[in-house]
């Protein structure tokens, strides 16, 4: 069975550690990830801004990359959800449309894959810190990923999970929104970080590096020491130190 990593351009360029954590965690469970190098970006920035021709250009690299995969796993709910738009994007290109339907049915976000496909909730990690979790919008609302990360976190030894007030509120990233509507986005991320501070958590964990980049950027801007991690990184660190 071929399980392929859809790294997402953001993790490829800025957060390779997230990909590394996924590769090593899955390898420890006997799943050797494959990485098709022709993949670039899912096309979300241009899709959301209304530039669909440009989106198709990027999306074709993804469709080609995973043609022969049985499972595709990605560290982002948002990029995973983007795949669900492909059938609509390629409705007039039969060849790609077939690939799009196929890809949609076999692509999973990381925790979905672990919990829903592999049936693993206890990865054998220990992480003795106070942690709060931000559920990213696309993953939780549009893909319905709600229980999976909580199940994984609840099995981590020593981890104290503290609820984040207004957790379901968007962090204000929204891709080009953060640039175009910088002040609105800034107000949103500021409020998100206010709530994170209220929890007094040492670590903020999430499932989407774009949102985490946004939140971490504001935390740093305000001189806050909260550590920001993708759940894959947290779990990997948690099994490594044991």
């Amino acid at each position, binding site marked *: 069975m071929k399980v392929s990593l859809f790294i997402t351009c953001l993790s490829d360029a800025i957060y390779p550690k997230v990909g590394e954590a996924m590769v090593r965690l899955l390898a420890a469970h*006997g799943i*050797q990830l494959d990485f098709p190098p022709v993949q670039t970006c899912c096309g979300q920035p241009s899709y959301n801004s209304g530039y669909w021709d440009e989106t198709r250009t990027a999306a074709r690299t993804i469709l080609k990359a995973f043609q022969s995969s049985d499972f595709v796993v990605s560290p982002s709910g948002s990029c995973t959800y983007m795949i669900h738009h492909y059938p609509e994007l390629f409705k007039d290109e039969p060849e790609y449309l077939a690939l799009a339907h196929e890809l949609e049915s076999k692509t999973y976000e990381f925790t979905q894959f672990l919990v829903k496909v592999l049936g693993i909730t206890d990865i054998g990690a220990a992480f003795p810190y106070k942690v709060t979790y931000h559920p990213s919008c696309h993953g939780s609302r549009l893909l*319905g990923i709600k229980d999976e990360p909580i199940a994984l976190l609840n099995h981590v030894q020593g981890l104290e999970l503290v609820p984040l007030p207004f957790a379901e509120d968007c962090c204000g990233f929204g891709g080009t929104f953060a640039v175009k509507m910088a002040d609105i986005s800034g107000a949103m991320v500021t409020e998100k970080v206010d709530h994170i501070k209220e929890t007094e958590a040492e670590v903020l964990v999430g499932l989407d590096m774009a949102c985490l980049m946004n939140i971490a950027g504001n935390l740093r801007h305000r001189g806050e020491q909260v550590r920001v991690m993708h759940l894959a990184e947290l779990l990997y660190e948690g099994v490594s130190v044991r």
Partner: protein
Amino acid sequence: MNPASSTRGTVKERADIALNDDFLRNAVRFTTDRLRSGKKVASTEHGNWEEWRERGRQIRLHTIAHLDYYLNLFVENARSNGVHVHFADNAVEATDIVMTIARQKEAQSVIKSKSMVSEEVHINQALELSGIEAIESDLGEYIIQLAGEGPSHIVIPAIHKNRYQIAELLSEDAGETLEPDTTILAGYVRRKLRQKFLEADIGMTGCNFAIAETGSMVLFENEGNARMVTTVPKTQITLMGMERIVPSWADLEVMATLLPRSATGQRLTMYMSGITGPKRTVDADGPEEMHIIIVDNGRSQQLGDPEFQELLNCIRCGACLNVCPVYRQIGGHSYGGTYSGPIGAVLTPALNKNVAEWDDIASASSLCGACYEACPVKIPLHDMLVSLRRRKVERGHGDKLEALGMRGFATLMANSKRFALAMRLGKIAQKPFVHNSGIHLKLGPLKGWNTYRVAPTLANHSFRDQWKELSAETAAQPKTIDPAVRQRMEQVLADRQHNKSTSRTGGESHE
């Protein structure tokens, strides 16, 4: 009254005013928090919320798909009940019809209950220009009328004002100082309006639902003022959006469950009035003459448009506003139209088909989908926002700089070698700006971002640059896969294969 005051400038400019108004932001937060948690409780307590949402959606989909039929049925029945039914293609026609009736009745004053359509067609301005007094009898509407503003929320028009600001406005109106106490303030307005009700020549209402099978109109309210508006004055005029129809009273039951719970977290609205024609000789009260004006004003343009037809399913509950993280920060006036929040961001441009004038209202969203999740009839507003953006781009009204950027993005992402090279070059280019492994520069596209954040840097080695080594390392010590895990994976594959052969599209979601 100057509704235009809220539509000046761009979304950004209007939002900046709101972002700097702490009173407004606190007032909006305070009330939307209360409403959304009320809704959460009410929908959980209902027990079958998702099923009822789907029922609501199906009723609305069916009605709008057969709008011609149901509208005709409604009109026939309303006419046989003795109602004068009028059609208005646009705002001007709607106000003209109202003015004609008002002149016939030699009306001096019109008392109104809350109606978003009346705000949409700016009826108050038209009446006042002709020297006819228009009085809002809904407390929130009364307040914004005093302030000379438009509604900043579909359900709570004065949501942006706090108790003290309201006390100030009402004190001025009263000519004496009123304490900022809700009971005192409401008491004052009630006393004042009592007289106005008795004097009014015409009562004007909106319409929450129109029942096709009997030609009735239904009003939902909490203050009892709409009941006064529809019983005291001799003439009643109802302004109704053409999509307000539901086929039957049985369908209304579903709406009567969804609407108050979604709007305010109430199980039922305080007053629900069903009105079937003017006063009959056996009736104790009611208007002697009743007019219903069915307003199109851009609605029929959504019919047959696969991307926007569902907009007509909206029941104006305001739930999408209450959960919207953008609305929370900028309030309703920033949207620049009668309707605000996510529904307003789509409805305003959709009703006014002039793409060039869409401003950037559809861009003022992070596409988080909270609106869709909250919507009792499941309107995919987040997808519609993207469709609006796309249409603007397709018709050549996109931002030139952005278009250039997107072309660059596509060139870069068309080919993985190019992307890999760009990452390597970027690493070199970023060097002069990196400070403490972050980028603080407040210039160009980074200006907005870095006003609130520190930007991250490109990694020293991209994932793809590390891949060879990483995969060799993990492959060197292969672990065996748990047979139970392997079996699950095989099962998923088998299920997928099965789905593929049973559904023609094969594109099943794995939820």
